């Protein structure tokens, strides 16, 4: 089906929302979370209205149906991202996925003196779990610098940092700058140094099917809610070699084979890492989101959203006193961070909100990156498939007007 944003909009109830201040919602905070089509909402309702049951262990019809729906969602999502369903572990989101990597892989494969390489572009989710581990274990964290002028990683320092590295954590696409990092090069360099790679693909997954097996990435973390799926679910996808090196993290029902008083034995496969009643409705909702997105070519979705970002960045750059980040190359995210030198980001955000426009403001969970830019806060607009050129233009006109009136 040829992609048009109007068609996508029609499926999303919240986009008709009139806010309490009488304004129509203009939702430009998609990098924080995306809106949900009726198809996803109905998949969840439907599950609860017709199929709800605990999964895996019971001998009754509902349990069988619920298990099929849940495991079917896993297969669908894994296939979408190009990895076997035996290697997709459901988590609560990207954050828990990276923590799973740090606990289940990191704590069983990294020892004192080992080196973890991270970049200054990382989201807190890909910093704090490794800091916690580093503190516990006296692991060295090396930082690949962000080059502010080009909004890019210093790949020379990256290459030089590989000496002795055991793990590289890299944000696939920056949630602040929109920059897509050269992950192919990152993986190549890391692997030739014998290091494993974890990609934070929270911002990439909504725009790119990732082809995980082909990419060679060892671990990839994603969140459903950033790609029109429900809250409360995400995944860590892991290749076979890394999977074999992981040890149980969360203990409890469903992940065990046998429990004795003095020891237990564990399941093989993904269930080893999924203890307790799973995120059943959430997985099914995520599967429905994939079905919905799969109606179109993801490349068309991406180029539409990126087009809006480019248009917006260009428009913002024409405003005096405005600093705009990122250069929105072909693979980059549809995210535009900006800051006006006379209008504080919070004032800007409140005034945009008074016009119905939802943007994000603050450090975007990337304080080291912001610090490198010499800032504590930016405004950020981020686009997705259901945003339109008219919305981008309304946003630009509003910003121009506010700057004119208040500076």
């Amino acid at each position, binding site marked *: 089906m040829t992609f048009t944003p109007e068609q996508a909009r029609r499926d999303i109830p919240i986009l008709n929302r009139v806010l309490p201040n009488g304004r129509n919602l203009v939702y430009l905070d998609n990098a924080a979370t995306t809106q949900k089509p009726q198809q996803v909402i109905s998949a969840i309702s439907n599950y609860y209205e017709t199929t709800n049951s605990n*999964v*895996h*262990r*019971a*001998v*009754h019809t509902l*349990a*069988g149906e619920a*298990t*099929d729906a849940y*495991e079917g969602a896993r297969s669908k999502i894994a296939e979408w991202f190009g990895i076997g369903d035996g290697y997709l572990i459901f988590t609560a989101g990207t954050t828990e996925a990276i923590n799973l990597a740090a606990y289940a892989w990191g704590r069983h494969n990294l020892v004192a003196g080992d080196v973890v390489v991270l970049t200054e572009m990382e989201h807190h989710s890909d910093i704090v779990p490794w800091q916690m581990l580093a503190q516990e274990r006296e692991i060295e964290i090396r930082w690949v610098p962000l080059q502010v002028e080009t909004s890019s990683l210093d790949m020379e320092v990256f290459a030089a940092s590989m000496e002795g590295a055991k793990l590289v954590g890299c944000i696939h696409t920056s949630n602040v700058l929109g920059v897509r990092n050269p992950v192919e090069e990152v993986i190549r360099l890391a692997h030739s140094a014998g290091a494993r790679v974890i990609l934070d693909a929270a911002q990439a997954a909504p725009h790119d099917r990732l082809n995980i097996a082909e990419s060679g990435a060892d671990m990839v973390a994603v969140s459903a809610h950033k790609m029109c799926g429900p809250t409360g679910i995400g995944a860590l996808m892991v290749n076979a070699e890394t999977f074999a090196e992981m040890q149980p993290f969360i203990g409890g029902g469903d992940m065990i084979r046998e429990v004795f008083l003095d020891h237990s034995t564990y399941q093989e496969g993904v269930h080893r890492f999924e203890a307790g009643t799973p995120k059943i409705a959430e997985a099914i909702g995520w599967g429905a989101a994939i079905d919905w997105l799969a109606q179109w070519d993801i490349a068309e979705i991406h180029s539409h959203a990126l087009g809006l970002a480019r248009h917006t960045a260009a428009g913002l750059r024409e405003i005096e006193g405005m600093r705009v980040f990122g250069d929105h190359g072909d693979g980059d995210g549809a995210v535009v961070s900006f800051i006006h030198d006379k209008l504080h980001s919070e004032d800007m955000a409140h005034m945009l909100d008074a016009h119905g426009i939802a943007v994000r403001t603050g450090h975007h969970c990337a304080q080291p990156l912001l610090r490198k830019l010499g800032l504590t806060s930016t405004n950020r607009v981020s686009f997705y498939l259901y945003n339109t050129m008219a919305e981008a233009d309304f946003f630009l006109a509003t910003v121009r007007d506010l700057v004119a009136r208040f500076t």
Partner: protein
Amino acid sequence: MYEAGSWPIRLQQIIDEFSGVDDSMERIEMLFEYAREIDELPMSEWCDDTKVHGCQSEAHVLPMQNDDGTFHLMGASDAKLVQGLMAITAIALEGLAPSEVAIFSSDYASEMGLMNALTPSRANGFRNMFRKVVQAAQEMGE
């Protein structure tokens, strides 16, 4: 190769018999009936080697060869349903060459509509049982 469309005659008859029945209770009773037809492995011979893992029930199989070298399956379970499925498997494979068993398709269970009548853990148990049998047949061939 034995697979959908080219099952042994006796198995095809069983498949047809099950396909004709809609009532789930009736299908269960039919499985119970078949459970009696297996060459039952006495409980005294149940051991780790014969055990099928991943079943909620105790399930044991002993794949062997008749005097003429053809395949024969003994088995038993404390759950009749499981033993019924085993029995149908035994009937299906009886008298085949081990090399034929080694490449026998497991699809008959779903064709009989048993896989969705069965729960996932049961289906899992069936798959483990079938894999054990096929593996034994492969080893006979070696």
